[in-house]
């Protein structure tokens, strides 16, 4: 008969089953990771600084931007960059600097919501697939194969064409579609953790599947989850800007960076190149920041994931 229930477990089992002071260990682990990043990965720290700066800009956007995002100055349309309008103005006389500052909120919102959905779903699917294996794994992996076979921009555009543009729609669709690729990495990590001795020990002590997955596997695959989330943020922001550029992301007049570069504005760009330059710099900078940070985190947390 299978031993179950806390009373029947030997004293050491409590610690083995993960009820040790986890919070203290987690804090120590975080400090250790940050210290290694600072010491070994200057480029990653640089990326992190860009990301942090963008988050600060997004939080304090109304205080930093000199004008509201959609405030028009008709007498100053297509005004070149200068003291009054740092990045110049667009065809409607809207201050580009203010729009870019406010636009950071859109990019980060889409990024974080998409990654929140994508990473959570990927973790659930990857862990179930890796832990249980067998037919469930076979079925889930074929579904992952199927989703990954679509060219992402085309399928995202198709879905956005059907469900309609909007900030939440973009974030949800991107989140769902990034789940497949990420779940494969999580599955790989879950597969290797599943074979560990501490999982065998927990099983021998009577822990059920739910407990093993949540208490033993999940904390030990946090490294790939963090890496996927960081790199995924850059990917989601880039994807949103591409969609907005094509007119299937965030509709005008919201100050999404991609829609500022849309094809409609091209004829103004031919006389006012600043309209074409600054939003692109903003997109590149934030995606570069997330990618640099994600790369560095991967090297520090789990070098085996190089090339994924």
């Amino acid at each position, binding site marked *: 008969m299978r031993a179950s229930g806390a009373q029947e477990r030997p004293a050491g089992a409590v610690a083995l089953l993960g009820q040790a002071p986890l919070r203290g260990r987690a804090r120590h682990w975080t400090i250790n990771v940050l210290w290694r990043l600072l010491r070994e990965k200057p*480029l990653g720290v640089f990326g992190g600084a860009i990301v942090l700066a963008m988050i600060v800009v997004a939080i304090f956007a109304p205080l930093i931007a000199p004008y509201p995002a959609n405030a028009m100055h008709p007498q100053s349309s297509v005004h070149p960059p200068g003291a009054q309008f740092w990045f110049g103005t667009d065809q409607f006389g809207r201050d580009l600097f203010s729009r870019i500052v406010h636009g950071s909120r859109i990019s980060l919102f889409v990024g974080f919501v998409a990654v929140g959905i994508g990473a959570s779903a990927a973790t659930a699917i990857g862990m179930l697939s890796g832990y249980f294996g067998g037919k469930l794994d076979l*079925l889930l992996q*074929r*579904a992952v*194969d*199927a*989703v990954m*076979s*679509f*060219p*992402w*921009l*085309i*399928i995202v*555009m*198709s*879905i956005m*064409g*059907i*469900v309609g543009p909007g900030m939440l729609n973009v974030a949800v669709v991107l989140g769902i579609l990034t789940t497949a690729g990420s779940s494969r990495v999580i599955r790989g990590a879950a597969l290797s953790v599943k074979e560990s001795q501490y999982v065998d020990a927990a099983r021998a002590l009577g822990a059920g599947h739910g407990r093993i997955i949540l208490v033993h596997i999940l904390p030990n695959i946090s490294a790939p989850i963090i890496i996927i989330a960081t790199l995924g943020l*850059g990917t989601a922001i*880039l994807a949103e*800007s*591409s969609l907005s*550029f*094509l*007119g*299937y992301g965030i509709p005008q007049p919201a100050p999404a960076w*991609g829609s500022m*570069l849309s*094809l409609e504005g*091209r004829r103004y*760009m*031919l*006389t006012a*190149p600043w309209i*074409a*330059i600054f*939003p*692109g710099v903003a*997109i*590149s*900078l934030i*995606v*570069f920041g997330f*990618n*640099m940070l994600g*790369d560095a985190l991967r090297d520090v947390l789990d070098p085996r994931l*190089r*090339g994924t």
Partner: protein
Amino acid sequence: MRQYVARRLLLMIPTIFLISLLVFFLVRLIPGDTVMMLLENASLGEQDVQAYRAKLGLDRPVYVQYGTWISDVLRGDLGTSLWSRQPIVKEILQRLPVTAELGAVAMFFSLLIAVPIGVVSAIRQDTWTDYVSRSLAILGLAVPGFWLGTLVIVLPAIWFGWIPPIRYTGFADNPWRNVQQFLIPGFLLGLGLAAVVMRMTRSMMLEVLRQDYIRTAWSKGLRERGVVYRHALKNALIPVISILGVQIAVIAGGSVIFEQIFNLPGIGKFMYRAIQTRDYPVVQGVNLFLAAVIVWVNFLVDVTYAYLDPRIRFR
């Protein structure tokens, strides 16, 4: 090898089945009445709704609808465009050469840029050359292609009064002009691909350079060029082909952006217009076609890889 190919082919069946289900239900995501939405742009009156519903088979149970649709697809019939009234397969095949040419030019540039940089980065690991190359690769992944495309049109027009050719010329009409047209979009699309190939080449080269046979080559007194190009690079490039399937997906996605910016009449532009005009049979057909191509390319890549590297077959 035969066993591996058979196993790989068998695994393709459920994947393709699931792809077909996803594509089939894609159009059923449309909120409200699909037929009303379809007719809205097909300039037909409301009195045709019931007839149209029956014609499309939408009055029958969903599984029957799927069965009819998939049996048509298996016979090579992806349906008819609501806009042009032409068979979708014909429309796709007409535009495929344009997208294929764009993809080929992009692949050419990506390999031309990525392989030498990846090799030098690996040989000079942890030097400034390596840091700069890796940062450039990350930058290549961060810079949006549509932004570069816009800058290439806007900046030369302002500085030199020159605009890249944006009126499409067929290869048969003027081969040189045709190739010229693909150089800039192909190069820009290739830059995005190059970042991935460069990173892959670098990590594979690093792995191969640590192998015993490379040490043997050095100890024989071979020159650096011989060791790197004759011994290491050949083996390091084998895994690089494994990302070909992913690259095809990136090219298909990028084709929407670059064909739109540079006015190339390929599948990407066709798809963009189809989504804009709510030509849902085309949306369905193109998605299914591209996904099937990618599954097939992935299969070919896996089989080639297994042939070149026998360890794969026994995993």
